[in-house]
């Protein structure tokens, strides 16, 4: 019932971190998974796809290919995302701002727009966007010096989700659209940042302190929430934000 057998899923940002864990879990649950990333990568259980989520023509090509190969698409997880160093309002350059917005927000918008059409034609589906606790609160110096562009892009993803969900419901498409807001997880994005940090151990300790469960999340723990939202068990869930943060935002 909570499984995904017979379903076809596309996961972006699937080469690493939350996207990778999600693609693998969906595969385990019986879905046919297309795992997309901007660079070539190897993930034997899934069909890997190279795409740049910023480019509408890439989305079109990948969706056409999935429909041609698998006949349909039931689930989209927009996990592709970037966080750049030096993201304070003072130091974020216009180029950094543009890159962050294009990948995190424009990519999610194009994916929602194009995939929901394909899903609607087949009678429904589930879109899962990925925001962040930093889409709801500033980092406050816990880890990064700032989340100016990153936080703004993720806050926008939260609201894009609500608007898309309302539209897709009102059009009777059968397509649900929700957003997961993760806290700090043990992903390459976070771990590489800590490795490069002048006080990586201190920054890690601050994360563990800030997340009441006292640790980084494991990517599989994100995938469990994505699985639920992707499945038919979440049939009444749309336009919602599901936070998975070890209690970070509860404080």
């Amino acid at each position, binding site marked *: *019932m*909570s*499984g995904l*057998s017979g379903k076809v899923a596309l996961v972006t940002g699937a080469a690493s971190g939350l996207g990778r864990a999600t693609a693998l879990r969906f595969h385990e*649950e*019986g879905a046919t998974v297309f795992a997309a990333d901007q660079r070539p990568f190897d993930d034997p259980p899934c069909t890997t796809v190279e795409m740049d989520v910023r480019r509408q023509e890439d989305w079109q090509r990948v969706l056409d290919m999935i429909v041609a190969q698998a006949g349909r698409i039931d689930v989209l997880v927009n996990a592709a995302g970037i966080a750049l160093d030096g993201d304070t309002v003072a130091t974020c350059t216009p180029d950094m701002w543009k890159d962050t917005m294009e990948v995190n927000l424009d990519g999610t918008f194009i994916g929602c727009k194009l995939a929901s059409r394909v899903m609607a034609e087949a009678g429904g589906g589930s879109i899962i966007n990925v925001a962040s606790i930093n889409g709801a609160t500033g980092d406050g110096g816990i880890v990064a010096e700032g989340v100016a562009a990153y936080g703004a892009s993720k806050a926008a993803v939260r609201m894009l*989700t*609500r*608007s898309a*969900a*309302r539209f897709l*419901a*009102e059009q*009777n498409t059968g397509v649900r659209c929700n957003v997961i807001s993760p*806290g700090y997880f043990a992903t390459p994005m976070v771990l590489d940042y800590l490795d490069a940090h002048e006080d990586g151990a201190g920054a890690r300790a601050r994360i563990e302190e800030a997340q*009441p*469960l*006292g640790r980084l*999340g*494991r990517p599989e*723990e*994100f995938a*469990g*929430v994505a*699985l*639920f939202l992707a499945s038919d*068990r*979440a*049939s*009444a*869930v*749309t*336009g*919602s*934000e*599901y*936070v*998975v*943060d*070890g*209690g970070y*935002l*509860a*404080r």
Partner: protein
Amino acid sequence: MSETEGQMKGRVAIVTGAASGIGAEVAAQIANEGARVVAADLNEPANLPEDAEFAALDVTDPQAWQKLVADVVARLGRVDILVNCAGILAEGTLWSTTLEDWRRIIAINVEGTFLGCQAVIPHMPAGGSIVNIGSISAWLGDADLLGYTTSKAAVVNLTREIALDCARRGNGVRCNSVSPGTTGTPMVRDFFNAGPRATHDEWIAAHPLGREILPGEVAAVIVFLAGDDASFVTGADYPVDCGALA
């Protein structure tokens, strides 16, 4: 047999308000996952799920909670899951709500949840999970639902407090809430049968999917939060509302 069946084998769950509506569905779904379910309510329902046992409980009575938990722990050894579904819904404005009305709704919806958590947490092993019932009304004002909206907002923040308290103790217990929209339960049916100012159609119109939520759909989110796939989720509120809060 569903693919998830059996994931809660060996666990013990207490579900309040289990005689009807969301609570009855939660008891059935958790039992279906293999857990031993103690279905608590004021009166025994006609159809108790298989593998569930009934326990009479007034959630506002602290001694009744202590007695129930002591009995369950003595016989079954532990409580892994607590779902506080007992709750009431009543119309009332700032002026029409009597102090008696106010105390009743706060006692059942808020104190009942508080007492349940307080009684059960000391007996929960690591991996324990509590799910409380908020509402979309916790997040929206409604001039006709003064006591109800206030009580549900209190449940959502009580949930955060309990999550933080458990995290600080490091006891491995998580605590979350769900916020259902208008659900097809006897509670909602009775509310509209009493002739309130609002109509059922008006309530449904506030849900973009244009329909009532099924009790089983709310139970599915609760069962997810109670289970291991939600192991990094604590202090959160998960709406299940056909888009009402979007």
